[in-house]
């Protein structure tokens, strides 16, 4: 089997050529760095993406402006978990204060990936 891919691990965007006869032995060509090889293999076997979004806050302690806190997954999440993560995170209310890097949701769907805050508020 063969597939043309574009590495999304950095802005260079190398064009990758993935070829394999059985899925335990995938060759990647066209990558300019080792990250491209990892990406190419994962993209064929089990595609993953980093998810970024914002969550509601439970209101600031001073009762001032209500703002949203930005969040991300701390590693790429297998694509099939993205929709249910989005449903969950939009229903969450994050109590303040919150620190950058603070885990808001641990081990999403048993993947080992966490949802963390990306802004201190």
């Amino acid at each position, binding site marked *: 089997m063969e597939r043309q891919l*574009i*590495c*999304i691990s*950095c*802005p260079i*965007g190398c064009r990758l050529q993935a070829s394999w006869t059985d899925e335990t032995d995938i060759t990647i060509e066209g990558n300019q760095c080792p990250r491209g090889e990892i990406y190419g293999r994962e993209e064929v076997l089990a595609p993953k*993406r*980093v*998810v*970024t*979004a*914002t969550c*509601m806050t439970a209101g600031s302690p001073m009762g001032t*402006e209500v*703002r*949203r806190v*930005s*969040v*991300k997954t701390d590693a790429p999440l297998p694509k099939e978990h993205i929709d249910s993560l*989005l449903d969950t995170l*939009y229903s969450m209310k994050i109590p303040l204060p919150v620190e*950058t890097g603070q885990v808001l949701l641990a081990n999403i769907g048993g993947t080992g990936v966490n949802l963390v805050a*990306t*802004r*201190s508020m």
Partner: protein
Amino acid sequence: MTEKKYDSVIIGGGSAGMAAACRIAEAGYSCAIVERETALGGILNQCIHNGFGLHHFKEELTGPEYAERFIQAVKDKGLDVYLETTVMDIEDTGSMKSFYGYSSVYGLLHFSCRSIVLAMGCRERNRGNIGTPGTRPSGIFTAGLAQRLVNIDGYIPGKKIVIVGSGDIGLIMARRMTWVGTEVLGVVEIQPYPAGLTRNIVQCLTDFNIPLHLSHVVSKIWGKERVEGVRVSPVGTEEGGNRASFDLDCDTLLLSVGLVPDNEISKKAGVDLNPETGGALVDSRLMTSVEGIFACGNVLHVHDLVDFVTEESQRCGEAVCHYLKGVAPGRQYRTVSGANVKYVLPNMYNPDGDNRFYLRPLVVKNGAELVVKIEGREVIRKKLRHVQPSEMVSFTLDREEIPSLESSRGNTLETGIL
């Protein structure tokens, strides 16, 4: 009215302003940042996606994370920061500059300083600038405004969305709007190639099967009160009359049709602008045509990567320190853009120092070469892997690479892409 006096004041507290201010404070000069919004960070605060800092921090950060590292540095250095303060009317009185800051927190402030750094960022082009005919219903937003509404205020601007322009902000918003549960019907781009990065085409459009209509324009907008639909036509055909045109039922249009440096207050200060960039004309120190007023970041020229903004602004901060110390370059000569180059910055170079340049290509090309000449003599020839207008190119010209120059000649430096 309160009087404030500093060696240098930075107008705008985005990534550019913060980086310049830190450098100036590190050298021991008194320095303040004046920022209109309630927090430092500028546009980074609404760019919640990742992809920032790969060059500068060697890791992939989201916009707020990148901003927070500089906000911390600003705090650590004990810089004075005036939030919720808008700068108007800069006055140049020779060795001293002065301006007013209007603030809901501090009231009216009057600043006097020996130097100013312009770091006000850019504005988005809006529909007026692209001139799409049709009615004037609501439901038309610039992509950056929509980004702010969704990410900071939690307000979702519509249900069925068409995006005009394939710049990175538009692409990032296509994914964002899909992830908040709205339907993105397509992205319409007038050029035959996308304006944004390939990785953003993949992860923001292909991942969600969002069609990208290259060489197409939105030729008509319907709707009385709210947008009800648009006509999408191939470039070069008359609106309506061609079979290849098609209609999309949407309630919202997001415009991602470019950014322009925000130089309203610079103009009032007498700063000369460059029609190619919309930013100031600057010498090798990033000093504008007004002595003591410098510029860096998106107010100078629109950057696609924040890492370059940081680098440019740190050098600007160093140049301000030299200026405050009374050190000036002995001679400077002009730079001009040659083949396939839209612009090259700065507009002057210093043959007795190291120079760093930024240029914007006019073409999409693989295996291109950068060629730099002084007085027709080639001083740099360098392979560039791939160039395209959406990706800025940077290069350095060290003192050792510059041949001895006769002062009787123009010694203009010309940069081209072959």
